[in-house]
């Protein structure tokens, strides 16, 4: 009975997600990171637009998807993704800002896209074996 309730909570918090979701997220994260090397308003526009689209995708596919109200994130499941994101994006980003090495934003862009696709693959595999 407890396993059943945990399973239903998991299915609600962690829905099956199509590949296009992770591909779009990877592209958007990479675009936001890469935009930091641009100068002028182009960087700002791409960053704001990219972040808005990232939030919109998350809302549309997970947190406020069709048939549900607000869905609470599953902390333990999300944690590995946050750690991967912090390492692949956060570290190069902090170094890029701290040492004024703009090229590191490109490393962050590649890292963000790679981490999203790899973690997306792992997520989809976990969901397939669960369901």
């Amino acid at each position, binding site marked *: *009975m*407890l396993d*059943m*309730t945990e399973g239903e909570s998991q299915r609600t918090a962690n829905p099956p997600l199509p590949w296009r979701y992770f591909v779009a997220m990877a592209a958007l994260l990479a675009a936001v990171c890469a935009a930091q090397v641009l100068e002028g308003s182009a960087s700002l526009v791409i960053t704001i637009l990219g972040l808005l689209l990232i939030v919109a995708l998350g809302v549309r596919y997970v947190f406020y998807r069709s048939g549900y109200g607000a869905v609470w994130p599953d902390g333990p499941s999300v944690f590995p993704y946050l750690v991967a994101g912090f390492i692949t994006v956060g570290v190069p980003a902090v170094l890029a800002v701290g040492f004024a090495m703009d090229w590191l934003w490109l490393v962050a862009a590649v890292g963000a896209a790679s981490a999203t696709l790899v973690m997306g693959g792992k997520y989809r595999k976990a969901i397939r074996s669960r369901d």
Partner: protein
Amino acid sequence: MTDGLFDELLHAPQRLRISAILDTASYVEFGELQNRLGISKSALSKHLSQLEEGGYVQNLRVTVAGRSRLRTSFTGRGREKYRAHKEALRKILQTD
């Protein structure tokens, strides 16, 4: 040990599944619940009515894009009862 926590109304498998789904979201629509549980409309309606009569859930009919939808959400009492029931199940498992 679990007196007052174990809840007969929630313990029915389908109502327990409904509760687990509702505990993770602010509301769930009828069609989605039916899809998740794989039961008939009448069976789901009966479960939801029982939960509503017990004060565990509230059902709200809304119109979205011209279509009527039934949204079900936990009441504060319902969420509390469900979590207490889960705790009771854990205690039963621990003592076995």
